[in-house]
């Protein structure tokens, strides 16, 4: 009897101790493992962000080249240089900018891009202020489930920003006709401005068009590209 009960107690104690130390070890291992996973991927994300920011100031040709490099089939339909002007204001926030194409009936023919605060900050989600891009919001923004792949992009600093849009992916649905390229910019505690560039589609030769804003947007240079394949 005595032996038996001792044995049982010993097994119980042993079991408890072993059990606890096992779980301690596994928690420690798990945390270490998680750290190992988390660290490299976090730095990768940071690198990617830094890289994409570094590219922002590059001229239009390299923007086309960059997009072309990403996608072998890339063929520019419209490329743009959009100037965000330096403003002498005490409180400056980067503007939200939407760029789209409308047909003659004010219908959105192509939703090219929208630059807004993609992440949450202390003032909440950046999507809260999207309706301030009033015309874009009314024409298309309110129908979208943000973020939209290939449309949503982060806000940009003061400077000239180059973007190129693939003719098939972004402008593939454009029938021949008259269109207006619209750049709308709105700034927190600032103003709102629209720059409109009418154009014909398609074009026989690359066509350069410019228009300028007066307050929130600077010079907008557009190149309407001819289809390289038909040349």
């Amino acid at each position, binding site marked *: 009897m005595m032996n038996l009960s001792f044995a049982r107690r010993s097994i119980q104690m042993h079991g408890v101790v072993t059990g606890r130390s096992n779980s301690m070890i596994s928690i420690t291992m798990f945390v270490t493992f998680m750290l190992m996973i988390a660290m490299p991927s976090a730095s990768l994300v940071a690198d990617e962000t830094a890289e994409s920011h570094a590219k922002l100031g590059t001229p239009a040709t390299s923007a086309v080249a960059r997009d072309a490099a990403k996608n072998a089939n890339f063929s520019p339909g419209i490329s743009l240089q959009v100037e965000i002007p330096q403003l002498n204001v005490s409180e400056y926030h980067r503007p939200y900018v939407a760029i789209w194409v409308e047909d003659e009936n004010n219908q959105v023919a192509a939703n090219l891009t929208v630059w807004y605060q993609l992440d949450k900050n202390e003032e*909440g*989600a*950046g*999507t*809260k*202020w*999207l*309706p301030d891009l*009033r*015309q874009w*919001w*009314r024409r298309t*923004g*309110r*129908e979208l489930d943000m973020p939209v792949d290939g449309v949503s992009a982060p806000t940009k600093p003061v400077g000239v920003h180059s973007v190129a849009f693939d003719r098939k992916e972004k402008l593939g649905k454009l029938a021949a006709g008259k269109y207006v390229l619209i750049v709308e910019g709105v700034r927190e505690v600032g103003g709102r401005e629209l720059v409109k560039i009418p154009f014909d589609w398609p074009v026989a030769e690359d066509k350069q068009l410019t228009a300028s804003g007066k307050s929130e947007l600077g010079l907008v240079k557009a190149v309407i590209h001819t289809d390289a394949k038909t040349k």
Partner: protein
Amino acid sequence: MKKVVAASLFLVGLLSASAHAHKTWVRPSQTNLSGPEPWVTVDAAVSNDLFYFNHFPLRLDGLKITAPDGGSVEATNQSVGRYRSVFDLQLQQDGTYRIAVINQGLFATWQENGQPQRWRGNAESFATQVPKDASDLRVTESIGRIETFVTKNAPTTTAMEPVGKGIELLPVSHPNDLVSGEKGTFRLLVEGKPAAGLEIEVIRGETRYRNSMDSMKVTTNSEGEFTVAWPEPGMYWLTTSTEDSVTSVPQAGTRRLSYTVTLEVLPE
């Protein structure tokens, strides 16, 4: 004294849509919203000017908020102040919310031992509280809707399904899709049916900063439709009223119906 104040407060709510001196309204902080579960805050008041708080708060007893899915939602942080009432609403669904304060009931006056008596209530309490043999009895019935609309992301119309009582507004143009330089068209219903010949008064807010109300008058056509060409962006106050004889007690000969809506018109 308290009774008189309460009664006159009620009268203000009841008759203000017709009495041009006083305007009733609910006005949202903004009408087009986005982001995850945004908040809108709403003021409700009875005032001489638009949209300023300078007379009475609008009581929130009849507050009814219809969500985009057609269900009812409660307003939070309801508060009745000296000059205005306030409440908050979190927009958890995509689409259009209908925010209404509905006042309906009976108002009676009579003489008792040479003293004027005032009473308000509904058809059930009328039977028990107003003496059958009251002398010089005057009974008015009324139904008034004071409303506005707010939208998260794309506008929808489910919340605007008519309930079929009093005067209601149906969208032809969506009430949260109005831009200056364009025209807004709406249909008015009385008891769920298109109402021809209703006169609507339209006034843009910020009346303090101009010398006249600059009110516009439009009238519904045979389909119950009316159109407003918005001269400039702003918060607009629209009101109309009519009378019929659809009363809940025979002592009330006529019923007064009123409708007021606050609409935001944005710059192009």
